[in-house]
């Protein structure tokens, strides 16, 4: 189609010169770009309210169904470095993979932060001319830190206004509840677009009508750009329904196609862009189902993808997570057609890109009312605490340890979200870090009874959400993290037959026995009985108290899950090993 014909014009990225040491690397090396075309799209996704720089270690295990393993969206570590040709120990390798993370963290420092991001955005706006640049945000922006939770998203909206976001869509945004979402949109300078959120309450005015504008048309560099919003299609199943009661979500490829056609045929746009929270692999399916989209600026699955992928003429990019990157996409479009493009995933290295003083002041002001609580040192960690990975990560294990210790349950469930933080070995753990891991609007830890049979079925159900061979049946998260449990899993197995050797408290599961289960961040309590109401407490308080009691936490990186059909965490395409 229209874009496929010009692919040769330069889909390759210009990675940061890797042979230079940190001392020689300058912001110029990071900014380097073969600018082209008549306008630039800048893109961020899934910053999860990280307005300050942070450490973020990418996964060391990213397993999926065999047909997907080793393809963009399911690449990590060595396989990732090989696929994209990364130099070992380079800045790109530090940002994009887990390899040698602790040593490189010392060398390159923290990532992201709005003050550093702003310096880069200003650079591009100056180079291209402000009137030729559009800044797009694929969502998961308002939630993920203590300052976001305590201001019910407002601090982050202020950060977006400061950065100059033009258009956004959402997912975790919705967990502040419908009314608050609409209030925050009022405060937001950007437009909020979503073509796939529809009223489903027959007693409301919005019944079967769009809740948000489906798209917006902007002019940049003489080109008319149509930008369609695609919110997270599974918000009402992945997060509690009560936040979005009366709103229905879904992929809705039919209406997406209608809006693409409307933009092309009625509005005669030069370029059709979708800002999407579908996830990287689902968007590859969307590009197969819907025709005429030039660019999908994806989000949700947190993949740092140094190169775009092209499916049936649609170019798909995704810009990692936690504010680690800004994607820069220069486009040449006129007469209703895209003639060429150039893309680079730009790492926001906070020690190399200077901070904008105005941004530093804004962050300080936003944090000031909460500094006392958020900066409290709770303890130290012996080993690096991290989030991500398909089955197990150390910070999740710490949360499960805290829950098992306080709730005296047989097992604990912690959700497989992909947002969080990384605390380096030997560093202090701050209360801020605990909120970075579990700062949500439904933080209650529930303790209740489940039958062995139910637990086994639930695990199979969750495994099928993560490992289904068809991305349209996945929800883009990782496996729930289990405390007090070990199991083996054959990822390629049939639905309902993946899990074996399931042990609770060191003994094989008894399907007829009743177990005491604690969980947070999900809906499992709805499936249980005998909810212990007196034990309900926010997970961040449970975790805080446990770390304080421990003083120094010592969580080993030895996982609780045995992978039967792959011999490593980052397999290459078509293989079960690395």
């Amino acid at each position, binding site marked *: 189609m229209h874009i496929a014909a010009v692919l040769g014009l330069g889909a390759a990225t210009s990675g940061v010169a890797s042979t230079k040491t940190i001392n020689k690397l300058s912001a110029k090396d990071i900014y380097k770009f073969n600018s082209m075309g008549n306008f630039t799209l800048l893109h961020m996704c899934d910053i999860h309210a990280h307005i300050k720089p942070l450490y973020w270690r990418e996964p060391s295990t990213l397993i999926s169904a065999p047909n997907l393993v080793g393809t963009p969206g399911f690449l990590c570590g060595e396989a990732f470095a090989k696929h994209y040709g990364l130099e070992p120990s380079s800045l790109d390798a530090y940002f994009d993979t887990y390899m040698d993370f602790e040593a490189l963290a010392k060398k390159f420092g923290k990532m992201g932060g709005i003050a550093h991001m702003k310096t880069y955005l200003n650079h591009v706006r100056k180079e291209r001319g402000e009137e030729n640049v559009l800044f797009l945000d694929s969502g998961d922006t308002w939630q993920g830190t203590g300052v976001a939770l305590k201001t019910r998203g407002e601090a982050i909206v202020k950060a977006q206004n400061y950065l100059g976001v033009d258009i956004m869509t959402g997912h*975790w945004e919705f967990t502040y509840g419908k009314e608050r979402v609409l209030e925050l949109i009022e405060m937001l300078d950007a437009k909020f677009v979503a073509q796939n959120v529809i009223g489903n309450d027959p007693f409301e005015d919005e019944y079967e009508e769009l809740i948000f*504008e489906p798209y917006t048309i902007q002019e940049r560099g003489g080109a008319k750009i149509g930008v369609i919003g695609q919110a997270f299609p599974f918000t009402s*199943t*992945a997060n509690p329904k009560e936040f979005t009661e009366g709103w229905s979500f*879904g*992929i809705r490829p039919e209406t997406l196609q209608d809006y693409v056609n409307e933009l092309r045929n009625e509005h005669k746009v030069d370029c059709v862009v979708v800002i999407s929270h579908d996830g990287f692999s689902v968007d590859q399916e969307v590009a197969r189902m819907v025709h005429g989209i030039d660019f999908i600026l994806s989000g949700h699955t947190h993949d740092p993808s140094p190169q775009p992928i092209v499916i049936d003429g649609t170019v798909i990019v995704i810009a990692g997570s936690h504010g680690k990157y800004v994607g820069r996409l220069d486009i040449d479009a006129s007469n209703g057609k895209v003639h060429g493009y150039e893309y680079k995933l730009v790492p926001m290295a906070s020690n190399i890109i200077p901070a904008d003083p105005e941004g530093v002041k804004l962050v300080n002001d936003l944090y000031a009312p909460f500094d006392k609580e958020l900066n409290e040192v709770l303890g130290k960690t012996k080993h690096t605490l991290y989030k991500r990975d398909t089955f197990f990560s150390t910070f999740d294990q710490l949360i499960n340890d805290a829950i098992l210790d306080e709730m005296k349950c047989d097992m604990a469930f912690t959700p497989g979200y992909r947002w969080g933080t990384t605390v380096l070995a030997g560093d202090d753990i701050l209360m801020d870090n605990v909120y970075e891991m579990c700062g949500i609007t439904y933080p209650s830890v529930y303790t209740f009874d489940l039958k062995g049979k139910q637990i086994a079925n*639930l695990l199979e159900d969750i495994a099928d959400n993560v490992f289904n061979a068809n991305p*349209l049946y996945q929800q883009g998260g990782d496996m*729930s993290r289990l405390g007090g449990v070990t199991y083996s899993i054959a990822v390629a197995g049939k639905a309902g037959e993946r899990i074996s050797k399931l042990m609770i408290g060191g003994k094989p599961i008894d399907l007829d026995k009743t177990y005491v289960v604690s969980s947070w961040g999900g809906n499992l309590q709805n499936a249980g009985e005998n909810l212990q109401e007196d034990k309900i407490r926010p997970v961040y308080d449970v975790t805080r108290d446990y770390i304080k009691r421990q003083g120094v936490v010592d969580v080993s990186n030895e996982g609780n899950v045995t992978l039967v059909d792959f011999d490593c965490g980052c397999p290459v395409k078509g293989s079960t090993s690395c």
Partner: protein
Amino acid sequence: MQRRDFFKKLGVVAAVSAVAPVISFAGDKPKSKNAMSYATAVSAITGGKTPKKSAKVKLKVPEIAENGAVVPVTVNVESPMTSSDYVKAIHILAAKNFNSRCIDVNLTPANGKAMFSTRIKLGGTQEVSALVELSNGDFLIATQSVKVTIGGCG
């Protein structure tokens, strides 16, 4: 703005199906007939004929249900709907429900369009089918898997 346009489009669809098809909900039938497996239901409808998979039957149902108690299903069949060539009936089946046969919709050429939209209840993850009877006695079918999940990963 766009919201209004969207609503207008819906209005058009509603007008097309203004000639009400004859509908019988399986739930209205006596209980003994309700406990019907998928295979029994299909052969009861087709009289033993094997329905042909067909792209003419457009079954629209979500891959992942937002709420298993009310899963929206739309069936649209390509057909001229003339007296010599029309869709006689649309049946919606849920393979693993206690009663597989969710709904039978009887149509005539006067309906103008072979389209039907409803909500069904799904007891769990399973396949949903639209089984279509044509005026020439042929049966067509389209099937899709629908996941009903407790959810909870974000």
